[in-house]
């Protein structure tokens, strides 16, 4: 057996490891929020600090918007970095850095629509007291376009902006190279934010790049309702109320953000009280949360739906998929309401078009009904007759379709298996293949499964990437990937001249009512041709502990109302 000295050594080792760990992996510290000195002697015990914990199921990549790409990171930006304006859950613009939204009427937009002039508010400051100015916006644009920076995206600046100038410290002038209908939902709003020039210009001057700037992790100078005091990657962020926020100090003193690897860990944390606000709640978790009596589960529309996409490219598709009657039959064969009720506890709705629950959704279109007999009739009419094994065939070709999708959660797996059964009932065989996002969504050049057309059906949650902007390039002929254009996103092989024309018109249409009409027509064409099969809505679903109050969200800028969250 081990000697006493060995036991002692082992015990010291364990205790030392624990002590070292408490001081080993230091989180990236930022400026500490200074405590204010009391001017008079307190007459009663100080009120307990108001704290809340929000949980996310993915790690924010960077505190610098130039290097960020995910919704989770955008949520953090809502708390620490202000956009020009936010868009609330009613679709109304709420000014933040900008004094007012530029329009033709107020002279903020030139008659030709190519010059946008906006003014920054006077009381918007960085947390070190430096005013936020137009120079910060110009600097951000310059850094986005600089070859020294490996930014996530230069869009839309690289496509639509000719120049950006600070006419004076508070006036920004943007010159467009061509009319751009979505400028108000993509310039320094959404995931795009203004950077502090006075902090980052010296870094760029010295390093020639912002890629490794310390500010990207610490974000110690910000302008949002909260300041970042601690960021431990894959674990948590700690945010403190920003006394200098132009709307006034937020009601919460501290907001913690816990990062979890998956939904199950988040659910456990919510139930055990270690998280107050849960994000991206999955439908089958809602009964569990509501049964605790501690949670409400508000939702906010975000322009996304879960939809089935299909390969219709004649060069690679199953011959059946090029026939709109077959595609319509597939849509009619799926009982989406049953799936929503049984798998998702009835919390979602069935969309009719890609622009579900927005003004761009054609009100004359109803979701495809569940009509298996109608599906069978369409398949019979298309020449696909039922074989002896129950699977349809035509001219020696079996109606066996390859369904590929991104694996990851049980409810999606259950949904897909349910599709398989429903389609089998009308004589369509479905081969299900799971894979990862990196393999399925790889480019044509990297032999991505979808890009090279090695599938018949697929599904994921998609929609308006720059919600509430309706623009998408998914369905354009020019976006079909090939050896000459390997990065195209039209993995579905859709090439419809009528659609092309409408998208081109809508993309530059600055009259909002005409634009809505354009998208109604687009939706009608896509519906008639069954270019997609919408399955269910996919709003943001939150879980909010009832110990909190005034917790509301927006589907566009999710945490824009965090400054008013409070503890009961």
């Amino acid at each position, binding site marked *: 057996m081990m000697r006493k000295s060995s036991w002692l050594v*082992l015990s010291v080792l364990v205790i030392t490891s624990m002590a070292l760990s408490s001081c080993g992996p230091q989180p990236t510290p930022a400026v500490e929020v200074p405590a204010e000195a009391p001017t008079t002697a307190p007459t009663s015990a100080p009120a307990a600090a108001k704290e809340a914990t929000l949980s996310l199921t993915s790690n924010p990549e960077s505190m610098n918007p130039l290097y960020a790409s995910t919704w989770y990171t955008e949520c953090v930006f809502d708390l620490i970095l202000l956009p020009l304006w936010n868009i609330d859950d009613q679709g109304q613009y709420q000014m933040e850095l900008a004094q007012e939204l530029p329009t033709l009427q107020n002279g903020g937009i030139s008659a030709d629509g190519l010059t946008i002039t906006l003014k920054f508010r006077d009381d918007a400051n960085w947390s070190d007291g430096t005013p936020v100015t137009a120079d910060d916006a110009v600097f951000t644009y310059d850094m986005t376009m600089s070859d020294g920076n490996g930014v996530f995206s230069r869009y839309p600046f690289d496509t639509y902006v000719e120049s950006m100038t600070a006419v004076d410290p508070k006036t920004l002038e943007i010159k467009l190279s061509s009319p751009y209908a979505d400028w108000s939902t993509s310039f320094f709003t959404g995931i795009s934010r203004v950077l502090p020039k006075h902090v980052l210009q010296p870094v760029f001057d010295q390093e020639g790049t912002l890629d490794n700037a310390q500010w990207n992790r610490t974000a110690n100078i910000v302008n949002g309702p909260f300041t970042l005091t601690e960021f431990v990657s894959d674990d948590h962020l700690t945010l403190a109320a920003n006394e200098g926020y132009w709307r006034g100090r937020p009601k919460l003193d501290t907001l913690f953000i816990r990062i979890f690897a998956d939904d199950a860990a988040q659910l456990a944390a919510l139930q*055990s009280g270690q998280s107050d606000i849960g994000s991206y709640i999955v439908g089958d978790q809602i009964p569990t949360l509501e049964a605790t009596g501690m949670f409400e589960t508000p939702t906010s529309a975000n322009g996304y739906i879960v939809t089935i996409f299909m390969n219709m490219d004649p060069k690679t598709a199953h011959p059946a998929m090029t026939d709109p009657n077959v595609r319509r039959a597939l849509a009619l064969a799926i009982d989406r309401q049953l799936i929503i009720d049984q798998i998702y506890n009835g919390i979602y709705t069935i969309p009719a078009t890609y622009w579900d629950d927005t003004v761009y959704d054609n009100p004359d279109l109803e979701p495809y009904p569940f009509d298996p007999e109608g599906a069978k009739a369409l398949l019979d009419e298309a020449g696909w007759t039922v074989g002896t094994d129950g699977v349809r065939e035509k001219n020696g070709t079996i109606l066996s379709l390859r369904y590929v999708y991104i694996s990851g959660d049980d409810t999606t797996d259950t949904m897909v298996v349910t599709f398989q059964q429903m389609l089998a009932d009308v004589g369509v065989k479905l081969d299900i293949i799971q894979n990862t996002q990196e393999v399925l969504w790889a480019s044509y050049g990297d032999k991505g499964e979808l890009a090279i057309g090695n599938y018949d059906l697929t599904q*994921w949650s998609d929609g308006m990437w720059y919600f509430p902007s309706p623009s998408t390039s998914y369905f354009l002929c020019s976006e079909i990937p090939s050896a000459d254009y390997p990065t195209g996103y039209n993995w579905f092989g859709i090439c419809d001249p009528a659609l092309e024309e409408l998208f081109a018109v809508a993309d530059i249409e600055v009259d909002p009512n005409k634009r809505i009409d354009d998208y109604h027509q687009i939706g009608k064409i896509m519906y008639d041709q069954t270019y997609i099969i919408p399955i269910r809505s996919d709003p943001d679903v939150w879980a909010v502990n009832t110990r909190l109050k005034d917790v509301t969200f927006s589907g566009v800028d999710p945490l824009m109302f965090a400054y008013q969250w409070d503890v009961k």
Partner: protein
Amino acid sequence: MTRYIIRRLLQAVPLLVIITALLFILTANLGDPLAAFGGERRRLQPADRARLERQLGLDRPLIEQYAIWLVGNDWMKVDLDGDSIADSYGTRRGVLRGDFGDSFQERRPAIEVIGERIWNTLLLMVASEIIVIILALLVGTFSALHQYSFWDHLITTLSFIGYSMPIFWLALMLIYLFGVNFQRWGLPSLPTVGMYDLSVGPTVGQIALHMLLPLTALSVVSLAAYSRYVRSQMLEVIHQDYIRTAYAKGLSERTVLRGHALKNAALPLVTIVGLDMPLLLGGTVVTEAIFGWPGMGRLFYKASNAGDIPVTMGILFIIAVLVVVFQLITDIVYTYFDPRIRYE
């Protein structure tokens, strides 16, 4: 012995080159790293994809990417601005000079990303390994000495149950019992996620408290396996002639067990522990994910899924080096347990 050690270390160099080359090829074929950019809600614009491929070096042939990973590109000119003219020197120094590259996901040095997680994983895994080894020796020895007794049967039954339990199920059960239900029943509950209470901060007490559940989950399965192994080795050793001779000489049971039996029974265990030690750094994906422990396992899973080559290769390289080092250490430790073993 010294020559032996030097020879082994020199042999390790070409071995590591071959291992890293193979790992690099496998890692690079996990999928398209750029497909993960944007998460589930956004996709890269085509122009941005082409630019990022160039800036991250993903447009180069695989062999060139490996060479740059190994020796860097700051000594050669590259095309950074996309005008097809190589007019700027690269910025990479290569693994041989301590530069593992920048994480594609977090856009900062991969070694920094890995370094933040190493201590968290070592804390959990080393503590678990120590507990498992000590308890396995105690339980396994007791079980062997009381073969076929009630306690032996009980330990055997519990070992099979423990070994059969999927760790994710065990982890979730521990959370729901000690975290959720205890709280609901008004009992003191244990924290279920993270390394410490964010309101309190990273104190020794907080970390110890937060370690209880993940340590339990990790230890149960390993203890079940190790204790069975110790039991079978002890059973083989205590029936040897030299043990009978030791008893015949009048030595106490304690002396016989500690001085003779355990040393010989432990030799194979040394091999297993030696193989396990470098893998400790890989952490445990499931446990870290469920308990929200920010460790290497979770990082490796996330990085390999996202095609984050610098981080994935950094972790694999470290593990490969540790495997080589710990195999050497294991061989040296053998000579302590068995003086008959000598190396030239």
